[in-house]
């Protein structure tokens, strides 16, 4: 069965092939052209398809190009923005760096403590030149005064008391060539609370070599009243005898001064001058030995005569030699009192310090013409003192802490005296014109006066021993032991002018202790 099927199929195939072969031969030529046409058409179709495809691709590409162009534009814009941002960032960074540096600078300034000069400069800028300054001193004092005997029958008694004194100095500078200074004292003294205008004057700086002082001022005679009377400046608590209860020249004056200084050699080799005039000397009465109560006020009956004074000082040692500072001075003060009677005085003084040693002294003399042909009222006074700072002291074998305390001490010694023909008993019993504006009562201690009767003797002498403990350059605890050694001679004079010999004068002792702050 199967073989038959294969055979029949083969036969049919042969028939078909035969038939086909016949037809092919017949249509060879036509078939060639048709084929070519078909091919052309196919090619055309293919070309169309390709063109269509290409167009599509072109469109797609164009779309892509457009897209890319848009994208590129955005990129460019972004790039520009980035560049701008970058520039801003750089600027901001620079600003930040500068700010950071400034902050660091400020931080440094904030952290660093302000210097006193910066602070002072700021205050000065704020206040301007019209400024006040208050300086001066304050002190508390204790005095024990042993009055062992009577003086010319006057009451006497040993005394001890506390005192307090406050002496502010006000400085006012309206401009750089004018200064006003005024000192007033307020204290609780021998008569209770009292006040006193010590000095008040204008200082006009005319040029390098001339200054005019006008007003109420300390007597520029020697250098004690001017330079040594402030309580923190005076190494002792009391004044030397010629400047105490029996002054040889008036302590103050109301008038005018012309003064100045100049350098004549090397640095430190200077000279200075002071000439002045004023209301003149004044005395508590017209009897022999009357105390001076200058400055003369307009209400006084003794204002007709005026005064004139002069002082010249020289400093011969140059600073470079390190030989210290030596001052040599000469002074004179002359005037008329009680309508035409002369008062003449002159004196010399010195001051020398080198290293820890300081010495000073003065000698002064006055002549007072007395009315009605009486013998003249002559007075002389002197003092010399020395002090030695124990700075640098190192005592072996004791702790350093003790040495530190010892180095602050300054032992002192002073010898002073006054010679005068007579002393008015009224001045001993009543106000003497010294201390707080004349509030001191005779034989009663007061601030800076030990009150011993012996200091009122016509020929008084005193040895003063001192021991200062310096807490700071202007803060001091002072201790003083006074030994009064008056000489015989001279007279006591009553208010009527009756004279009695001074006779025996008690040798008193006094102890004073004072705490003073110079501010």
């Amino acid at each position: 069965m199967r073989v038959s099927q294969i055979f029949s199929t083969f036969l049919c195939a042969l028939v078909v092939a035969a038939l086909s072969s016949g037809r092919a031969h017949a249509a060879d030529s036509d078939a060639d052209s048709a084929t070519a046409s078909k091919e052309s058409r196919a090619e055309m179709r293919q070309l169309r398809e390709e063109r269509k495809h290409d167009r599509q691709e072109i469109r797609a590409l164009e779309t892509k190009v457009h897209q890319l162009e848009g994208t590129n534009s955005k990129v460019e814009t972004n790039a520009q923005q980035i560049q701008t941002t970058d520039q801003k960032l750089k600027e901001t960074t620079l600003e930040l760096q500068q700010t950071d540096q400034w902050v660091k600078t400020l931080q440094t300034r904030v952290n660093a403590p302000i210097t006193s000069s910066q602070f002072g400069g700021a205050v000065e800028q704020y206040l301007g030149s019209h400024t006040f300054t208050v300086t001066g001193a304050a002190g508390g004092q204790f005095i024990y005064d042993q009055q062992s005997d009577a003086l010319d029958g006057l009451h006497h008694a040993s005394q001890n008391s506390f005192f307090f004194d406050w002496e502010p100095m006000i400085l006012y500078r309206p401009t750089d060539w004018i200064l006003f200074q005024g000192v007033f004292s307020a204290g609780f003294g021998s008569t209770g609370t009292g006040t006193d205008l010590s000095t008040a004057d204008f200082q006009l700086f005319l040029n390098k070599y001339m200054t005019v002082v006008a007003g109420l001022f300390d007597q520029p005679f020697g250098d004690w009243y001017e330079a040594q009377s402030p309580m923190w400046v005076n190494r002792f608590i009391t004044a030397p005898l010629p400047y105490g209860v029996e002054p040889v020249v008036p302590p103050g004056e109301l008038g005018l001064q012309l003064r100045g200084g100049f350098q004549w050699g090397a640095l430190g080799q200077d000279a200075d001058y002071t000439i002045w005039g004023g209301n003149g000397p004044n005395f508590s009465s017209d009897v022999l030995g009357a105390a001076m109560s200058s400055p003369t006020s307009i209400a006084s009956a003794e204002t007709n005569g005026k005064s004139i004074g002069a002082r010249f000082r020289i400093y011969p040692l140059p600073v470079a030699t390190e030989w210290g500072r030596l001052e040599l001075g000469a002074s004179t003060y002359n005037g008329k009192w009680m309508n035409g009677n002369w008062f003449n005085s002159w004196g010399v003084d010195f001051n020398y310090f080198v290293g820890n040693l300081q010495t000073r002294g003065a000698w002064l003399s006055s002549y007072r013409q007395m009315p009605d042909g009486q013998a003249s009222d002559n007075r002389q006074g002197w003092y010399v003192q020395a002090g030695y700072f124990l700075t640098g002291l190192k005592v072996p074998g004791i702790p350093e802490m003790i040495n530190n305390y010892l180095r602050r001490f300054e032992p002192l010694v002073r010898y002073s005296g006054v010679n005068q023909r007579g002393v008015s008993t009224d001045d001993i019993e009543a106000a003497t014109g010294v201390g707080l504006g004349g509030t001191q009562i005779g034989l009663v201690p007061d601030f800076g006066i030990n009150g011993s009767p012996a200091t009122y003797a016509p020929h008084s002498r005193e040895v003063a021993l001192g021991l200062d403990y310096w807490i700071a350059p202007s803060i001091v605890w002072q201790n003083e032991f006074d030994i009064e050694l008056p000489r015989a001679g001279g007279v006591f004079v009553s208010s009527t002018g009756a004279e009695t010999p001074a006779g025996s004068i008690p040798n008193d002792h006094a102890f004073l202790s004072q705490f003073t702050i110079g501010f």
Partner: protein
Amino acid sequence: MKKIFVAILLAALALGSTGVRASAQEQDNMSPAEHKRLFREGAKLWPVYCNTCHNARPGSEKAPYEWDQIMMHMRTLGNFPQEDTQAILEYLKAR
């Protein structure tokens, strides 16, 4: 005596008044080098001049404007030469 004193004073005022402004102007126009020179000189003079009468007080105790006034007063009291006063002031104000 009064006539003599008044004559001296008037002569002094006439002579001196010409120098007032010059002195103030000199201080204003001072150069930094001049300030340094004054400071060094003031450091030498401060212990010498001040200790003549009292313990030398350090510059830190007072403000600069206070030293201006205090040194004016000290110049009067001590009769210091003007240049020396300026030198000490320079030193005190610098502390």
